[in-house]
């Protein structure tokens, strides 16, 4: 395995792993604040119990998120030193601000997790709020760094011999990609966590375990999930149109669209033949891409053939990931709407239909699937650039040797950790349910 491939693989694996726990670190605190807020409002102990039990899971997940995030901050320099040498002055400000936000989250989560007995109920709820806010804020700030890599503003600074001799430290925050990426990625965290939690509770309800607890937990999870999933479609639309404007080759790859034309169809699925410049199979939705991009059925959409071959990403990967993301997202939006309809129409504490519970279980991993697929779209879709137009990925990679070994080492480490976390979460859910009784 050559250094570049190994470095990309290690970074992708580290990011994919961290992303799950980062999403949980953003989504879980919101759920906790809602649950504990309901307890303060209604005095119903069930909400406090939900907050307490989910706080225990949050403690484990947050810790893994923190250490895998530390690893990423090192890996930026270990795997991509030439990239960081160039980009450090521009990205530094985003990471500095993100650092403060994350620091606050770490402080207040310490207060939250360990302060149940030391703080009054109201104080305890109050310290949960900065955890949720700071978590979301640190996610938004770190996305600014990625936004700069996607669409660096032309006046970011003066590049001389591959280094910035002068720079605008606010350049990353002025990237046109930041706002739409920040909204979309933050919503993605809430959607993935919400549906995952909903699946856990739906499963327990199917088994008849601790029904009152899990009905409450399901309501909290689904209120976050359903609203998030509905908004995510709108956010996705904004984002896609921004990408069409600022990264047309990525948009073309997402849609496996080769020939610039008017009135372009959306192709869902299919097998991409890059050599022939065509897609075999797949479902065509007539003129839908033009409509999506410009809200007009006859608008022009640039195709991959407009760009030199060595400036195109892996179309099959980007296109498939995009379709996986959109399908999963659409399914979740529908599931959320369905749940809302059944729940709001039905009796307050009446049983939920089993088919709905089974659908929630089936849908529970889809949020994380969409999250990962979406990051694959945006990162793989930016290739061969590490900073669009400024530096190619192969020019940013380390010259150190031993990258295949560290890739193997970290894959084994994270695989092991992932398995232990899953086992622990299962034990936590089972154990508590057994204690509480069916």
């Amino acid at each position, binding site marked *: 395995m050559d250094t570049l491939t190994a470095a990309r693989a290690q970074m992708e694996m580290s990011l994919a792993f961290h992303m799950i726990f980062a999403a949980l670190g953003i989504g879980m605190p919101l759920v906790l604040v809602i649950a504990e807020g309901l307890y303060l409002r209604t005095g119903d102990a069930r909400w406090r119990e939900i907050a307490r039990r989910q706080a*225990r899971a949050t*403690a*484990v997940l947050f*810790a*893994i998120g*923190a*250490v*895998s*995030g*530390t*690893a990423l*901050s*090192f890996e930026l*320099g*270990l*795997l991509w*030193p*030439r990239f*960081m*040498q160039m*980009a*450090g*002055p521009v*990205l*530094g*400000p985003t*990471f*500095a*601000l993100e*650092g*403060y936000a994350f*620091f*606050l989250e*770490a*402080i*207040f*989560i*310490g*207060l939250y997790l*360990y302060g149940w*007995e*030391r*703080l009054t109920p109201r104080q305890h709820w109050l310290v949960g709020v900065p955890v949720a806010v700071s978590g979301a804020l640190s996610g938004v700030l770190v996305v600014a760094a990625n936004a700069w890599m996607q669409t660096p503003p032309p006046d970011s600074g003066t590049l001389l011999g591959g280094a*910035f*001799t*002068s720079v605008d*430290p*606010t350049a990353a925050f002025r990237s046109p990609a930041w706002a739409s990426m920040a909204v979309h990625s933050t919503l993605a965290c809430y959607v993935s966590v919400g549906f995952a939690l909903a699946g856990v509770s739906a499963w327990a309800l199917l088994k008849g375990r601790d029904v009152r607890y899990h009905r409450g937990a399901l309501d909290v999870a689904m209120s976050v999930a359903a609203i998030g999933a509905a908004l995510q479609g709108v956010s996705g639309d904004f984002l896609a149109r921004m990408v069409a404007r600022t990264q047309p080759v990525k948009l073309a790859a997402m849609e496996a669209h080769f020939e610039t034309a008017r009135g372009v169809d959306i192709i869902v699925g299919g097998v991409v033949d890059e050599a022939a410049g065509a897609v075999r199979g797949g479902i065509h939705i007539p003129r839908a891409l033009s409509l999506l991009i410009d809200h007009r059925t006859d608008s022009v959409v640039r195709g991959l053939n407009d760009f030199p071959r060595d400036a195109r990403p892996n179309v099959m990967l980007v296109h498939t990931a995009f379709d996986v993301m959109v399908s999963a997202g659409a399914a979740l939006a529908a599931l959320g709407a369905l749940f809302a309809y059944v729940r709001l129409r039905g009796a307050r504490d009446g049983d939920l239909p089993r088919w709905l519970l089974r659908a929630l279980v089936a849908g529970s991993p889809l949020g994380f699937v969409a999250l990962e697929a979406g990051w694959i779209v945006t990162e793989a879709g930016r290739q061969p650039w590490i900073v669009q137009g400024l530096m190619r990925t192969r020019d940013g990679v*380390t*010259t*150190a040797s*031993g990258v295949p070994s*560290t890739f193997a*080492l970290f894959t084994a*480490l994270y695989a092991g*950790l992932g398995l*232990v976390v899953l086992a*622990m979460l299962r034990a*936590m859910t089972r*154990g508590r349910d057994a204690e509480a009784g069916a």
Partner: protein
Amino acid sequence: MTLSDAAAGLTLLALIAYAVLAGADFGGGVWDLFASGPRRDAQREAIAHAIGPVWEANHVWLIFAIVLTFSCFPPAFAALGVGLYLPLHLVLVGITLRGAAYVFRAYGADDPRARRRWGAVFGASSAVTPWLLGACLAILSNGALRVRGGVVEAPRLSAWFGPLPLTLGALALAACAYAAAVFLAVETDAALREDFRRRALASGTAVVALSALAVPVLHAEAPRLASSLVSSRALPIVLAGALSALASGAALYAGRVRAARVASIAWIALELAGWSVAQYPFVIAPDVTFAATAAPDATIRFVLASTAPGFALLLPSLWLLFRVFKSRPRP
């Protein structure tokens, strides 16, 4: 003071905060591993009680230092990433395993065998990580890592087993163990306090011995740094650090644990500051300086300026955290 000096100073402060706070955490892990005697379980409980609420926050100082380095000294960060490629990966494994093992033990099943296993992982990674970081400091000082013609020449594997990396690695470990023992003595009482006081005296003795050993080793392995440490710039700081160490030991001997804690914090801060001042102007001796690798002024100004609002939020929050969990009387 130039902008790059100010940024270097801020990075030093972050490293000192990390060394004191996270160092005590690492040391706590070491004492967890070596918990012994009739109060073994109580010792482990005291350590968990001390570390639990604060360890996440304590370890953010490292990320802070990393962000400062790549924002303000990007080519130096790049050189460190290439030159310290393998050891820094091992540091990451240590940090990752430590954090994971800690929560797995704290929140996992009540199976005692599993708890002991995770405890061992927690303790071992708590010991290995400071050792590696101390060894990295040695490599930055003794010229084993060269950058010539823009090409980073990483140290040979054997360089990591040289006298200076071994000594500074051991010293870093002993320092963490000492700090943790002193802090734990303050946070416990009666027989437990005595347990930790004795452990502090033992690790303190190791600190003194290793510091003494470091003198000839520095002369042999890092002559530039050695002579710089006794220069008019660094010597006052180094001596003040040595005095703090002695004061800490004396206070400990006399059972004055609170005074010992203050003095030990002063010792760590002064020793790191002394090393930095002696190492200056180098990030990596003898090829990489702060001045030559400084980012454009605008970035450094932004980062420095952000400390005002950032710390305005952070410091009161940190104060709140430590007040809620570290103030007396304990329940």
